[in-house]
């Protein structure tokens, strides 16, 4: 049996009084490419944020590599988790370039008071190239379109050389052509770097094409696992 890279045990998270995760348990095996599928407000983003320790877990446990995550381990742990958030609201005038953004993922690893090495810069360049945004490198991030921003954020996560990659709606604003490309790309990155990857998406065909396994979420609970092939069937049944 494969080792679990990431596990949630009866995790409860709430914002104020309303729970967003109601006792979620989930195991993600080492090297697995897992899809999280569910309606708006199902708690998908919250689940990713719980893995990162960005939301307080009220009860239950989050384990990474079989070890329960402690608060003091979080900074080190996060350095090895690539996170592509759902949506960033950034002012158009923000004085940060695309290259700056891609470098940022590595800043915690570099440590304060130190300049990025040649290696760090090369990693950023490779990530920019992999995402097809090298030509945008010197633009202000705020000037990019939604899809371009998403590619850059993905490049940022990749440059971090993560072991665990968490992606929140990576297809939400990229064009259909890049969606097809993106599935291939994520697969490639996932396999080449021996990653464990969780992808949240509304896009059923995308998840079906991409993932080894898809988990359905609803109302803060996990309804169950579906093999990717039966996901499409289920979506078809639902829609008609």
């Amino acid at each position, binding site marked *: 049996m494969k080792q679990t890279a990431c596990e949630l045990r009866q995790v409860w998270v709430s914002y104020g009084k309303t729970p967003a995760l109601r006792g979620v348990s989930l195991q993600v095996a080492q090297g697995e490419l897992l899809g999280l599928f569910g309606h708006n407000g199902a708690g998908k983003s919250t689940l990713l944020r719980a893995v990162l320790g960005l939301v307080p877990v009220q009860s239950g446990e989050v384990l990474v590599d079989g070890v329960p995550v402690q608060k003091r381990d979080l900074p080190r742990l996060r350095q090895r988790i690539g996170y592509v958030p759902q949506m960033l609201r950034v002012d158009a005038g923000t004085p*940060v370039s695309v290259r700056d953004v891609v470098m940022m993922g590595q800043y915690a690893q570099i440590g304060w008071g130190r300049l990025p090495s040649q290696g760090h810069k090369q990693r950023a360049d490779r990530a920019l190239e992999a995402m097809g945004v090298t030509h945008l490198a010197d633009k202000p991030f705020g000037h990019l379109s939604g899809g371009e921003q998403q590619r850059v954020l993905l490049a940022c996560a990749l440059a971090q050389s993560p072991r665990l990659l968490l992606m929140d709606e990576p297809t939400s604003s990229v064009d259909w052509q890049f969606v097809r490309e993106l599935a291939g790309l994520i697969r490639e990155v996932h396999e080449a770097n021996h990653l464990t990857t969780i992808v949240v998406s509304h896009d059923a065909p995308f998840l079906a094409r991409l993932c080894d396994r898809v988990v359905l979420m609803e109302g803060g609970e996990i309804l169950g696992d579906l093999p990717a092939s039966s996901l499409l069937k289920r979506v078809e049944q639902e829609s008609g």
Partner: protein
Amino acid sequence: MMWLTLWSEGFMQRALLATVLSGVTCSLIGVLIVTMRLSFIGVCISHAAFAGAILGLYLGVPPLGSSLVTSLLAAGLLGPLADRGNLSPDTAIGVMFSASLALAFLLLALLPGPKSEALVWLWGNVLTVSRESLWLLAATASAIALLVVLFFKELQAVIFHRDLAAASGLPATAIFYGVLICSGVAITASLSAIGGLLVFSMVVNPAATAYQLTYRLSWMFLLSTLFAILTGWVGLALSALFNLPSGAMVVLVSTTMLLTAITFSPKRRAGTGGIR
């Protein structure tokens, strides 16, 4: 020429030094405050600092110390409010802002004897800045410049997006509060030169001007500092030549510069800038 002979006077050199040092201190902090959208907190901190100074005079403790305490208190109270993105902090800040001013004016009225010392904290006076204040300003300016250089990339990540910075393993919350604390210290240190009413424009104007002109953070720090020095120099010269209050002149000059920058801003022409 008067412009040249002016600077050979000892007190003018001291005044220039005070203006430049407080300008550098405030303008560096200003870049962080403007890019992290903390302007409203900056306003509160400056008025709390002023109230603290008056409180110190009233209680007979060193005003600089008491003003540091109250400004840090304001930063500590407002930080969590700004932290919680879903709650609009407007009301709390409005209340705090006017309460600290009211307290300051009340204490001002209660102070026995002539009020000239107290009024310095309100208007500031670069001509009467003490040697200790100058040293404090110099130390604060260097410390903040050093922190900006040491933590440049971390600050940049937090400016870009606090949440993403935290997710990548940076102590984003600590950095955020560090910025608030530095703001309190910088504002307090500049208080005796610039005064509680005007210090906030010294913080925001040069940074907001620089924000109009560049998309690079490093340039923003440099330009902001440069503008602060320039406006300090011009404002001081004008005030000496026409015998006008120095703080007011410096602020008016920097406001003029900001308006000019907004008018000719490449960002505004690209439809992406504008004052915030």
